[in-house]
């Protein structure tokens, strides 16, 4: 026969601790907000389709050609720069400049011929062409800066 549950064996402090844990887990969990490590657990909850807007950083070379720099090419500290970039609209001029400059410093190390760095909101679209999935881009520049020689935010 199975051993019965004996709640009295569980210390009162443990029971209170568990009650607090569940409150901290359930309130943001049910409402759906994030205050890390409290979270809404909204993993992959948004629908994906063929298009999505991403924030990208572009390197402009001497000929004026702008090419997207994958954040994966930059050091680990820059890999999630998409989120600070997404906060740029409506933020202060000083903040926009400092984010752009921070990215420019890293971009110029992987693309030494860069004369200007652009932060853009890119309307990306997945399209199938001749059996291959191709990503099309339509970037709208939000901020620009020039590596090492000063910068300007548009």
């Amino acid at each position: 026969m199975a051993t019965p549950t004996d709640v009295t064996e569980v210390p009162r402090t443990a029971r209170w601790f568990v009650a607090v844990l569940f409150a901290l887990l359930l309130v943001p969990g049910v409402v759906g907000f994030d205050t890390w490590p409290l979270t809404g657990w909204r993993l992959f909850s948004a629908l994906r389709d063929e298009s999505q807007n991403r924030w990208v950083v572009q390197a402009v070379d001497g000929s004026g050609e702008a090419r997207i720099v994958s954040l994966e090419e930059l050091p680990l500290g820059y890999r999630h720069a998409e989120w600070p970039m997404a906060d740029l609209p409506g933020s202060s001029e000083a903040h926009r400049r400092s984010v752009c400059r921070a990215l420019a410093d890293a971009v110029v190390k992987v693309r030494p011929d860069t004369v200007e760095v652009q932060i853009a909101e890119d309307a990306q679209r997945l399209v199938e062409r001749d059996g291959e999935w191709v990503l099309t881009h339509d970037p709208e520049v939000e901020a620009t800066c020039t590596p090492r020689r000063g910068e300007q935010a548009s």
Partner: protein
Amino acid sequence: MTRFRRWLDDTLWGPETAARLVVVHVGLSLLIGARVALGSYRQLADTPRALVDPVPLLFWVERMPPVWVFVALQVVGTVAALAAAWRRSPRVTFAVAWVCYLVLAGLRGSRGKVLHNDLLLLWASAPFLLAPVGGAAARLKDAWRSREPRSAWGWPIRVATVIIVLVYFLAGYHKLRRSGPEWVLGDNMRYVMLWGPSIGSPAWGDLARWVGEHVWAARVSAGFILGIELTFPVVLVVRRVQVLYALAAAVLHVGTWFLLGLDYWAWAITVPLVLVDWPAVAQRFSTNRVNSSAKVRRSSADQPSMPSAM
């Protein structure tokens, strides 16, 4: 006492053996130690101040700490986790390892994006901060001798199980709340797979593309994921399916790594560690081995002796 109250008490405070408590405690300690030791944290020290957006827990952090702080947290966390696994002041050392892990994971998440990779392990480990890891549960050898399940040893495992159940259920609930049945029935999973290479570095990109190009495969995958998440609470009512759900969760997260390149290894290991009664599995395995070797001995004793070759 009502039937519901009895079920609730048993779900939260039900009895487990000391051996199971020690196995889960040691397993969580080693897993935390591995995450702390092997995680890419030091490289975060170079993050420019403008790209640092501290998580609410670390609200006072204005910039990433210098490398030596990351290294110190990793060293202290790893040593403490190993000490907990080796049963040296297990309650204190486990707490030290857990706090180091919490801070390191928080720093990793202080770059704007809400990261969930380490959260299940942190949450499922939290009840073990107060687990009774002295007495019979101090060492595995002693715990193995103590066969009788008790609520005193069971509650951390039961509470961790409920936490895991809630996490999966909430993940499914938000998919349904935000996207509805379209999450499964529409093209959602096709595009999750096709976009995959742009969000991670999948180990098996060709399979992700194959799933993305076959609507039925994408819908079956989505149905499997949402089905597992929404029905996870079943394990609290029918305990014998815990092993199945543990296996399904492991498949889901290992699959996520292969197809999308996302690191949910801590989830893939935590769930089976907590949900499966490993000492019982080991006991059943050794009993089966003893029985089958006894059967072999019996059957060879029943056979007539071979005539001498000479």
